[in-house]
């Protein structure tokens, strides 16, 4: 079988999946009150150490590298804008990018645990989107695991592939990972009566994965574009943060 043939089959399969599985997706942020108290508490406990480390990291950053304060504001603003954009997806429902990949590349995942949580708190308090009781769980997904994935991929790829590709994969996979964690959290709290956790995870996971793929690509591209603009216009900050060291 030639290479082209193989790719054609993969593409046809993906298309069929998108067209036939065009059902609604199951995850964005977990809604207020929709995690049983025990699970809600557990995810707060998981998030807490990251918040403590993140808070210390930001405090130190502001003292040691005050010239990066404005860039920190920009990173927050980027997450703010992107998470306000509910973009339609092929499954007939909408979801939004997270915007946390950029900050994770520039400042590291600890700082983003605070920035992402602030965005979530704003949406929970003012928009009834997400929730206070589910803040811990949503923070673990969007503000902790997403940025950790972004940072891991960025660290692993930089220097090996062109920088824009490393940025793209870091941001796109961070977005994707966020929603994988969300469906994991939902599946843990609501295992399928017959199939258990695995069946519920497949139920929550497979369907939303299709929704999230085009959004993850969009987030990857948008992050590459803003990173590109920063490389031209914010060289001092990028140098101060050692972002491109080894790239």
């Amino acid at each position, binding site marked *: 079988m030639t290479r082209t043939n193989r790719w054609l089959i993969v593409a046809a399969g993906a298309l069929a999946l998108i067209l036939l599985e*065009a059902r*609604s997706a199951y995850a964005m942020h977990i809604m207020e009150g929709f995690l049983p108290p025990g699970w809600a508490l557990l995810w707060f406990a998981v998030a807490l150490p990251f918040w403590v480390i993140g808070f210390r990291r930001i405090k130190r950053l502001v003292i040691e590298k005050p010239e990066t304060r404005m860039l920190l504001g920009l990173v927050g603003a980027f997450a703010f804008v992107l998470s306000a954009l509910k973009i339609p997806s092929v499954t*007939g429902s909408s979801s939004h990018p997270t915007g946390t990949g950029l900050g994770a590349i520039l400042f590291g995942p600890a700082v983003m645990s605070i920035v992402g949580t602030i965005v979530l708190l704003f949406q929970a308090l003012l928009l009834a989107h997400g929730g206070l009781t589910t803040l811990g769980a949503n923070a673990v997904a969007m503000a902790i695991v997403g940025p950790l994935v972004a940072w891991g991929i960025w660290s692993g790829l930089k220097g090996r592939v062109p920088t824009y590709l490393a940025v793209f994969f870091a941001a796109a996979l961070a977005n994707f990972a966020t929603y994988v964690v969300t469906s994991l959290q939902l599946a843990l709290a609501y295992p399928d009566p017959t199939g258990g956790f695995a069946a519920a995870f497949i139920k929550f996971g497979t369907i939303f994965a299709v929704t999230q793929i085009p959004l993850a690509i969009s987030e990857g591209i948008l992050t590459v574009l803003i990173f590109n603009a920063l490389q031209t216009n914010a060289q001092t900050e990028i140098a101060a943060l050692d972002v491109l060291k080894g790239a």
Partner: protein
Amino acid sequence: MNHKSFGWRASLFWFGIVVVLAIIPLLLVQDSEFEGADATAVEAIQELAPDYEPWFTPLMEPPGGETESLLFALQAALGAGLIGYFFGFKVGQRRVRHTEHSTPMAAHQSVSEQA
């Protein structure tokens, strides 16, 4: 490894791709309102655990879709405003530095241009 930045033409092209990615679903899926995925998650939960009662309700909920979209628009506007300010500031800063570093003649020229 190559980490040169690319120009506005390439940026515009990739931004176009993002727009296209958002438009395709609208054309492809006709009978849908594109409701939020979190609302659909609630339906799935009710399917898996029919007698689950949410034990906490939002402290403050926008009265309707209009107010909610107002708040979402405000969120996006605030963020976009800050991003615009940042890049405006940085471009200005770069221009000043550029003028300082160029020859006295060029610096003089740009001053007289402003006058």
